């Protein structure tokens, strides 16, 4: 009875991410309990804000969490990953600034309302997604190769949109999205993530998109025979990721009210893929759990923040993440799982034998 309960827990998809989160929390609690301290202060505009490591994790993990939602769907439907999300953030962010600032890089006033700029960015993001999706679903190119195109060209395109100039947004309201809304001490990014999660949950609940995506990912042929259009489903997944990218770029650009084409959201695609893997989702497509991926995104940020706290050089962060990847890959490999379970049965057998000889 107890054993079956344990097995149920360990075989749950959320087990690995939750275990990782628990371990990180324990390490931090032992080394320095003040890690979990959250204080209420005021920022330089005189508004109340919460601060502390936990708030930092929730705040800076937001972009990754949003990207992880889209990346999970793409992974599930296509059995591959989109490595162009960082470059696409540069494109959508650049388009957003272009609309906000017009042709003047240092405007006194906004050339267009923020909502218009955001909608334009969404359209641009979805177009980029559709481009990737078309290559993958219609031309049947491997997702990683197809998205390599925007990965290489994206940042040049972003620079070209603004004639290689760096516009600076004058309106303080634009900073709310990556900062704080006056009077609300919780980072705005947290609300943006919650909205994204709710919208996604509603879509998955009231449409068959989730089911169809999984079935296409598991077996494309039989899904087609069952009347599902795999091309359409894959396209939708990539377009949805494009939308997530646009939302993430709003946060990224808003944090500093400007953009640097060559470094904005650098290497974020790898973190997004890692989030999906940490969530226990199969990277070769099929069944997925979006909430596990979102959890994975926050774990990555938890790890990053912890490492910063321990004064690990930031150019060495990638190495630590690599260790996590290695552990994940090794433990989820079928061969290791098999031998682990064999080890268990052997032990059990030995115990039984010992009991008999006594």
């Amino acid at each position: 009875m107890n054993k079956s309960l344990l097995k149920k827990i360990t075989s749950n998809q959320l087990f690995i991410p939750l275990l990782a989160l628990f371990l990180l929390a324990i390490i931090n609690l032992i080394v320095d309990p003040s890690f979990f301290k959250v204080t209420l202060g005021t920022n330089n505009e005189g508004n109340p804000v919460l601060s502390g490591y936990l708030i930092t994790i929730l705040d800076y993990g937001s972009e990754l969490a949003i990207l992880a939602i889209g990346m999970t769907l793409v992974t599930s439907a296509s059995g591959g990953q989109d490595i162009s999300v960082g470059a696409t953030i540069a494109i959508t962010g650049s388009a957003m600034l272009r609309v906000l600032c017009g042709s003047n890089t240092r405007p006194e006033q906004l050339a267009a309302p923020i909502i218009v700029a955001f909608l334009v960015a969404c359209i641009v993001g979805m177009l980029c997604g559709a481009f990737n999706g078309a290559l993958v679903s219609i031309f049947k190119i491997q997702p990683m190769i197809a998205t390599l195109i925007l990965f290489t060209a994206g940042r040049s395109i972003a620079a070209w949109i603004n004639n290689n100039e760096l516009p600076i947004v004058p309106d303080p309201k634009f900073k709310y999205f990556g900062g704080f809304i006056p009077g609300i001490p919780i980072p705005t990014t947290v609300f943006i993530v919650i909205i994204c999660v709710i919208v996604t949950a509603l879509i998955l609940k009231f449409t068959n998109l989730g089911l169809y995506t999984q079935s296409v990912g598991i077996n494309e042929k039989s899904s087609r025979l069952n009347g599902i259009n795999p091309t359409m489903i894959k396209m939708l997944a990539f377009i949805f990721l494009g939308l997530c990218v646009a939302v993430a770029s709003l946060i990224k650009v808003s944090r500093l009210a400007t953009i640097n084409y060559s470094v904005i959201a650098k290497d974020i695609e790898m973190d997004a893929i890692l989030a999906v893997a940490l969530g226990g989702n199969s990277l070769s497509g099929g069944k997925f759990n979006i909430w596990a991926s979102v959890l994975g995104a926050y774990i990555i940020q938890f790890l990053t923040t912890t490492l910063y706290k321990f004064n690990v050089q930031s150019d060495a962060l990638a190495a630590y993440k690599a260790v996590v990847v290695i552990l994940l890959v090794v433990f989820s490999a079928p061969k290791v799982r098999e031998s682990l379970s064999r080890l268990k049965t052997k032990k059990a057998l030995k115990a039984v034998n010992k009991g008999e000889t006594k």
Partner: protein
Amino acid sequence: MKKAIALTMASVVALSLAGCSSKETTKATTAAATTAAPTTTQAETTEASKETEATKTESSGLIKVGIINNDPNESGYRTANDADLKAMFTKENGYDASFAYSLKNDEQIQAAQTFIQNEVDYLLLSAADTAGWDTVLQDAQAAGVKVILFDRTIDADPSLYEASIVSDMKKEGQTAVDWLASQNLTEYNVIHIQGVMGSAAQQGRSGALDTKANAESNWTIVKQQTAEWNAEKAQQIVQSVIDSGASFNVIYAENDDMAKGAVAALDAAGISHGVGKDVIVMGFDCNKWALEELLAKNWNYDGQCNPFQASYIDSIIKDLEAGKAPAEKTIIMEEKGFDASTITQDDVNKYGIG
């Protein structure tokens, strides 16, 4: 048997797919490259041919110079550098100048050969790469073309060029640290945000601060981290220090972008910064927007990385024309450090880049 056939078929299909996809990639990237950067080679050849025609018809009162530079779109620094050269080497100033731009060494070498064939008097060079210049510079010497290096040095025998005009990153760091020391704080608790580790700018700008912090007992480096010239990383690093509760009163960021990221973290945490405030903010490169922050007294100091080499080159050419060799082969430019309490709007207009 059937299985084997199926396998080979599958692999053929896979191969052809891979072929398609790689073609797609190269096409897209070349397309992007051509749209993003103006087709430099074409522009340069047509420009060069135009210039040669012009000089053939004109009297030889002008000094002919061929200028090889990196792509002006590379950075704000390069744009300012190119504009400065263009403003100096004009007909009014007695020059007949042709320009060639490339970020690739081989294209630059090709341009140099064209200039030598066109019999320029001076070849001005900001090399994309340090190696591979010996042969072409020997050709230049044989043809009697004098070479002046600017902004970047090369690995070649010094006898092959007349002079090289460069920035001294160590001195930039020293100027900044001296300025900081002159603020006479009782205690210095510094957050040191470094550039990409190993780059010339990082080594020069870090070196001076490291030495000072080791020598003085009241200088402490609270945190030393590389943010790789990235504003977002700088923001996270400073956020981490704030979360830890450690106290600090100086932010020494090795470029303007990272200083901006650091300031964003300070703003969110309600820590005041600037002239007469809690935290001193220091940056480098003198971007226009950064100098504007100084003018608004939000930052305290910005160190220059001087892109304005044209006047130095001009005076060397004037000397050489008069028969005087430059006193030193390597000429280090004067680089200022701007203090927020003394900076003026004129400084912003004159020295701000981008």
